[in-house]
């Protein structure tokens, strides 16, 4: 094995299939039509026909046994199209449930990102408005709860199907390994990071295309160096976060979890999954925030008008990332993974 930054032939096929699927089936008219709930049932059912929700499960559990490296390619294509479907949440949650037979055919599962409140409520669960099954921590236990989804979401920045869900009311399964939650949350971080890379890349492409088309002072605004230099900031952030996503996926696929990987801050070697997942999430959130900000800005006034697509990207760049936590707290968590505190 050797350092290689290309997609494998299999990954390339997956990228082609899903990029073309999402661009045909999830144009921005579909994204707009799915607002405010943020769910497109027809699109979801097409993905079910393709058996995409089960991709992330082992073959023994009826899945396709896809690697993380394959899944992040799909996730990036999903992010590029802002596809309003709970695919990434479902992957993260259904992997925890694999082998339990709890999840029925056609059901949507999701992950509650934070432990429940004392009252037994999981607040603002992503895909909580549409998922039948929620997996999360409740009073120190890892549980899955089946209940009726509200099919309504509070008005929110990224038009995402968020909802509060009960961690106690409904058909309930206690999972035996509470430690599985941390791994599932890290996998959610990596899937979401890949989708944020897709948002950032598409925002850059939209921004470049607009800057070449829009003229001012007798030439395309993309011919002005100030605009060029603003956009030229972005490839480092986007490529950097994409590589972090793929490195995290590589670490997961190679079993570099629970201390099997390396964290050597003396020479900068990091191959352990958890810190790589944290880095991938933080960096791609930053890339998506900055890329959508610059791209929107170079649209001038049109950028914040609802008619233009870039505002859809701008809002989801924040909505999909900030649902987890304040990035500053995520960085503190990363610091704890890298350096032990002094007694």
């Amino acid at each position, binding site marked *: 094995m050797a350092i290689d930054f290309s997609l494998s032939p299999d990954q390339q096929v997956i990228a082609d299939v899903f990029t073309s699927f999402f661009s045909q089936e999830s144009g921005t008219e579909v994204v707009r039509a799915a607002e405010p709930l943020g769910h497109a049932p027809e699109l979801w059912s097409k993905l079910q026909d393709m058996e995409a929700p089960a991709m992330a499960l082992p073959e023994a559990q009826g899945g396709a046994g896809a690697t993380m490296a394959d899944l992040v390619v799909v996730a990036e294509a999903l992010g590029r199209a802002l596809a309003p479907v709970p695919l990434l949440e479902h992957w993260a949650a259904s992997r925890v449930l694999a082998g339990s037979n709890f999840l029925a055919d056609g059901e949507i599962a999701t992950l509650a990102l934070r432990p429940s409140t004392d009252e037994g409520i999981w607040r603002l669960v992503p895909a909580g408005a549409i998922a039948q099954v929620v997996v999360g921590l409740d009073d120190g236990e890892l549980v899955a709860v089946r209940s009726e989804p509200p099919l309504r979401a509070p008005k929110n920045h990224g038009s995402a199907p968020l909802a509060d869900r009960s961690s106690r009311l409904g058909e309930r399964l206690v999972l035996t390994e509470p430690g599985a939650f941390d791994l599932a949350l890290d996998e959610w971080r990596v899937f979401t990071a890949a989708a944020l890379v897709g948002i950032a890349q598409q925002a850059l492409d939209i921004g470049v295309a607009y800057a070449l088309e829009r003229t001012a002072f007798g030439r395309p605004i993309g011919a002005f160096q100030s605009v060029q230099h603003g956009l030229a900031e972005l490839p480092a952030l986007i490529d950097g976060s994409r*590589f972090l996503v793929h490195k995290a996926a*590589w670490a997961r696929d190679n079993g570099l979890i629970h201390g099997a990987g390396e964290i050597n801050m003396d020479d*900068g070697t990091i191959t352990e999954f958890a810190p790589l997942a944290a880095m991938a999430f933080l960096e791609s959130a930053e890339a998506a925030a900055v890329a959508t900000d610059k791209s929107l800005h170079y649209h001038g006034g049109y950028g914040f008008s609802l008619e233009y697509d870039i505002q859809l990207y701008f809002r989801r760049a924040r909505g999909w990332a900030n649902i987890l936590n304040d990035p500053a707290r995520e*960085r503190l968590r990363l610091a704890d993974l890298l350096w032990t505190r002094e007694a």
Partner: protein
Amino acid sequence: MDFTLEEKHQALRTQIRSIFEDVLTDEILEAAHTTGTNHSPELAKALADAGILAQAMPGPGQDPVAMWMLSSEAEKFGAPIDAIGMMTMIAGVLDAVGTEHQKATAGADLLSGEKAVCFGLTEPGGGSDLPAITTRSRRDGDSWIINGAKMWTTMAHIAGWVFLLTKTEADGEHQGGFTVFILPMDTPGITVDPIWTMSTERSNATFYDDLRVGNEWVVGEPGQGWKVLSVMLGFERGMGNTGALTPLLRRFHDWAKESGALNDPLTREHMAQIAIDAQVAELLTQRTVWTAATGQPPGTEGSIAKVFATEAYQRHARWAQAAAGPQGLLGLGVDGAAAGGWIDYDVRHSTPQTLQGGTSEINRNNIAERHLKMPRAR
């Protein structure tokens, strides 16, 4: 994608690290970081004897991973690599486009670690605008007459060779254009004046007064110097000088641990950001190296890595200095200095890095035009 280092490269890394351990005494390291001359002839010799300089030379058929590894390991260790990087670079240019004579003389000197080389590119009247240079070369039968001045000829005071870009005067038969020479520094007519900087680096101005040199020192074709230069710039960008965040973070961590700041959330949060940027800089650099290894010219990938890594280095060195408070102002070797003075060193050392080897602005032009396919803007 795969992030595994091949076994032969793991072995090379081990070999490089053990040479650093063996050769670099505290005295050598201190001299390399306090005299302004970031060079150790002992290290150059040891790396040459182990065949590592030849492996780390850029060029067609060469292994870009070996080149990156020497540079990145040196950055992590704090090993003086500046002159050595220039030596392998010019050896690579000569290997790609030089004559047998040039390879046997200058090339052999550089790869044996015996003599250093300086770059005579930038001039007092202009930095990034290389086509505007005024150093002139004129044919005179079988020889050439050269007149002019160069700035930032770092290492000229210890170098055996200069890699010199000139503008050639047109004559009856020839168009003029640019001509590159590789010249012995003891050629009569060359003088060297020091330029002392705040950056920890001593540089030089060099003057070329009525040099008379033979045709055998022309690199590539006369008048085709631009081609030679583009070979060099293709080698240069984004494969070295992108790994400084790792030692910066290590040194800052040592200070934070000592001073009790390591548990401070403000400190920890920013340290985590430095760790992310260090990973990104390394991944962007590895991508450039991989691009080169697959036989493609890594032009825009190198620019992307270079701008990101050098700007992140400046940003975080300056943060580290502020975070260390008054002790962060104290220099190398000063009693009580934060991290032994390395934080002050990093602020100084990072400052010229967004200028050297292509300014951030030139690199952003390159990214906009060639990566994003936007119109040429000046």
